[in-house]
């Protein structure tokens, strides 16, 4: 076995030092009744070359973005991954390190996380960021746990225009936190403001998404103000790539900003691993879940970085911890941070403008093909909800279009009652105006 180093001679010498005759004897504390006496029923070992061929064969049975023109989005996007992230991902010092418990060994990853936290704070306009959460769904549950402890309240308000998967994850965990979830319906593709304000009464937190699940910009400042008026924590679920053109949630009164970081150049990878991010107001720092890196000094007054506020964490506080999180998504979050550095402030603004322009182009071209905006009068960021002409099935359009080499988007009928004729089309900077013209032509034929 090529991953093991011990020779027969090594084994004999080591057993002699231990003072036993056989490897089997090392397991003598395991009662006979719970021993496995047959070999594991697994397929035989493969050589590296055999395994490479096997994995390539499995991969070949997946249709990837190089095989079709894809407009799928709905929370995971085919954004460009800058080649420079490979510099980070391929370095064994990052890839094969553990959580930086021993800071003198881990200044590289600690400084990188500190720089990541700075980028998240700048983009969201908030004071503190943790080192990442699992994904854009679980950070919403984290926000609920934080809010319950901060406010002593037990109601969570979520907008219907918050991605259904995020709402599902909140619904899974909320009962364990002793919380109930109230969903505020949408009206015309955005949160119903009056219902939102009413629901916020007595809530621990209120979570909205902008751009929302339909790609539409919500009136974030109004939603945050309504939550603040009830002393419920306003939580914005945002797209990092939108924050070059859209206002920072912290600047309009949000207590927390959370979201899915996959947009920042992370491969789609069938849904993960991606990373969730979470930023908060300064007064919430001691309730933040997960790892946080802080600056300090070494014994010679040199600047250094270290995991800090560990008294919040499970290995110190145990049942009184602010969360159970240990392993998070550090490497992926740092890859996202490299992408953000690669764009810089000017690049991020231009990217945001491009995405808004391309999404508008989708609406224009689709209209010519007979598809109307599902929610007219709204502004979109990088996704557009289109209504199939004549109330036709979006599922059917997607099926026919795929046969023509275009994956036109996500039919929304599964997750939204009454939207069986709505197709959610996503663009990224990898799609061109010509691609959009082709999309329009194909869906025009398929309706």
């Amino acid at each position: 076995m090529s991953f093991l180093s011990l020779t027969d001679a090594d084994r004999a010498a080591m057993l002699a030092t231990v003072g036993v005759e056989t490897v089997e004897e090392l397991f003598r504390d395991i009662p006979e009744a719970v021993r496995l006496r047959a070999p594991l029923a697994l397929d035989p070992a493969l050589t590296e070359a055999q395994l490479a061929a096997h994995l390539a064969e499995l991969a070949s049975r997946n249709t990837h973005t190089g095989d079709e023109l894809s407009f799928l989005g709905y929370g995971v996007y085919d954004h460009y991954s800058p080649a420079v992230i490979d510099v980070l991902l391929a370095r064994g010092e990052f890839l094969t390190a553990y959580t930086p418990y021993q800071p003198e060994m881990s200044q590289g990853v600690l400084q990188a996380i500190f720089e990541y936290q700075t980028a998240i704070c700048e983009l969201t306009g908030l004071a503190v960021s943790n080192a990442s959460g699992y994904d854009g769904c679980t950070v919403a549950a984290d926000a609920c746990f934080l809010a319950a402890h901060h406010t002593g309240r037990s109601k969570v308000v979520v907008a219907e225009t918050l991605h259904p998967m995020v709402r599902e994850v909140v619904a899974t965990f909320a009962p364990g936190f002793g919380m109930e979830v109230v969903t505020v319906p949408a009206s015309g593709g955005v949160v119903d403001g009056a219902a939102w304000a009413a629901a916020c009464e007595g809530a621990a937190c209120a979570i909205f998404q902008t751009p929302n699940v339909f790609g539409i910009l919500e009136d974030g400042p109004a939603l945050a103000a309504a939550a603040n008026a009830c002393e419920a924590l306003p939580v914005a679920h945002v797209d990092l790539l939108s924050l070059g053109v859209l206002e920072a949630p912290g600047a309009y009164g949000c207590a927390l900003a959370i979201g899915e970081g996959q947009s920042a150049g992370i491969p789609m990878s069938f849904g993960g691993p991606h990373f969730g991010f979470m930023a908060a107001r300064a007064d919430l720092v001691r309730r933040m879940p997960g790892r946080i890196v802080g600056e300090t000094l070494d014994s010679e007054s040199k600047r250094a970085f270290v995991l800090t506020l560990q008294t919040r964490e499970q290995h110190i506080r145990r049942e009184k911890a602010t969360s159970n999180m240990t392993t998070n998504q550090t490497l992926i979050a740092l890859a996202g941070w490299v992408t953000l550095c690669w764009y810089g402030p000017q690049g991020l603004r231009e990217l945001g403008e491009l995405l808004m322009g391309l999404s508008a182009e989708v609406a224009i071209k689709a209209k010519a093909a007979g598809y109307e905006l599902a929610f007219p009068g709204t502004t979109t960021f990088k996704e557009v909800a289109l209504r199939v002409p004549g109330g036709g099935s979006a599922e059917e359009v997607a099926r026919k279009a795929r046969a023509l080499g275009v994956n036109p988007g996500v039919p929304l009928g599964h997750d939204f009652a009454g939207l069986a004729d709505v197709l959610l089309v996503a663009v990224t900077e990898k799609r061109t105006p010509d691609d959009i013209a082709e999309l329009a032509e194909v869906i025009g034929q398929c309706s």
Partner: protein
Amino acid sequence: MQLIYEKSVPGRRAGTVPAYAGLAKPAVPAGLGRAAAPRLPEIAEPDLVRHITALANRNFGIDTGFYPLGSCTMKHNPRLNERAANLPGFANIHPAQSEESVQGALELMWRLQEILREVTGLDAVSLQPAAGSQGELTGLLVMRAYFADRGEDELRREIVIPDTAHGTNPASVVMAGYEVVGIKTDARGNVDVDDLRAKVGPRTAGLMITNPSTLGLFEENIHEIEQIMHGAGALMYYDGANLNAVCGVSRPGDMGFDVVHINLHKTFSQPHGGGGPGGGPIAVRGLLDPFLPKPQIVRDGEGAGAFYRLDRDRPKSIGKVRGWTGPFGVFVRSYAFIRRYGPGLREMSEAAVLNANYMLARLRDAYDVPYDRLCMHEFVISARTLKKEHGVTATDVAKRLMDFGYHPPTVYFPLVVPEALMIEPTESEAKETLDAFCDAMLEIAREAASDPAAAKAAPLTRPVRRLDEVLAAKRLVLRYAFADHPDLAAERAAASA
């Protein structure tokens, strides 16, 4: 070294964005547009690459050297696995694609489920949880759903946990809405069975333990524990953090456990990445299958006609615990790792256990050994005597090891052992590496007597000397603040002047 923000020069950039003539430029509605640009760094690509490289040079991974961090299973990460995860057919597939268009991905996940069933000796697997801690929380919610289904949720409110447990266990219990009941450890390092018997009753929902425990010891009374728990109608949860000791040797399902989480980033070599990503699938006994997260990956038919699909029609499911179907890239790496071993996973665990016992045998005379037994894949020794006689603590030993070129072991855990040093070599290491590390440990123990100041002053060879962690927690500096950034060195100088 400078922060990237300190290297920023206005007007520089790396990535560029295409511009299309004639493309609409929609206005952001009033009040929603960005007022002040985010202060991301402005840096050209060559210097961005150098910055990342300089950071890497200030970090230590398994690729750099020996990293015997107990309970973390710092084993070799084969590079084929990285290459495989980056194949376009794996990296560039979207989770909302049709099942027909992702048969290879679904088959890989289904095969991984089957492997984990066999390794754990249990009936059903959910790959969804994002990491070990999330696996714990998921498993506990599955247990709650099971008891709720039986009308016992209001009665069974307690989870019993030994005092050696990982901190995640009690934290997860609280997040699941349960109460923690602590159990003592006996003189041999096992769960104190009398204490357990006294504390288990009609209010008990379950037990959470790690086996081998965080002391690196196999729970000798596992059969009696199983009788007590199941006799009370409670369930048994297995924290799989230490599964690397027993693959192919003993299976949690055969020990009587009902729920297990598996840390793919420990036992099955998903690289740790400086703190993630990980993977925390859970395996359960059949009676808990209906409550697993949805969707589940199932196979219809066999052989050439097999079709893999996502089963969302699971009315008793606890729901979703994260987005989509789990960290697929992690599944690719762990599946690849396991396929290199096949049934030889047993040899992996045997090598891990032999390596640990060899080190323990070499170190036992120089350090305190709190429980004098053969160990499993890791062991705990103590610097208690070094501290008492020479003032050299577990922290000092850890920092001094850095000057010998090693990452230190886990220190001060488990909590039941004072001045604990928890050492896990894994199966990856050669005898020469273990010998050199043990030589360093013995030298440090000798030096503690002859020159205790040396350990106190360590490390001398890292990019920074020993850190002031109290300052970090008191004077919170959690982001770069540009012109307003504090100068901690100047503050310290002023304070001491």
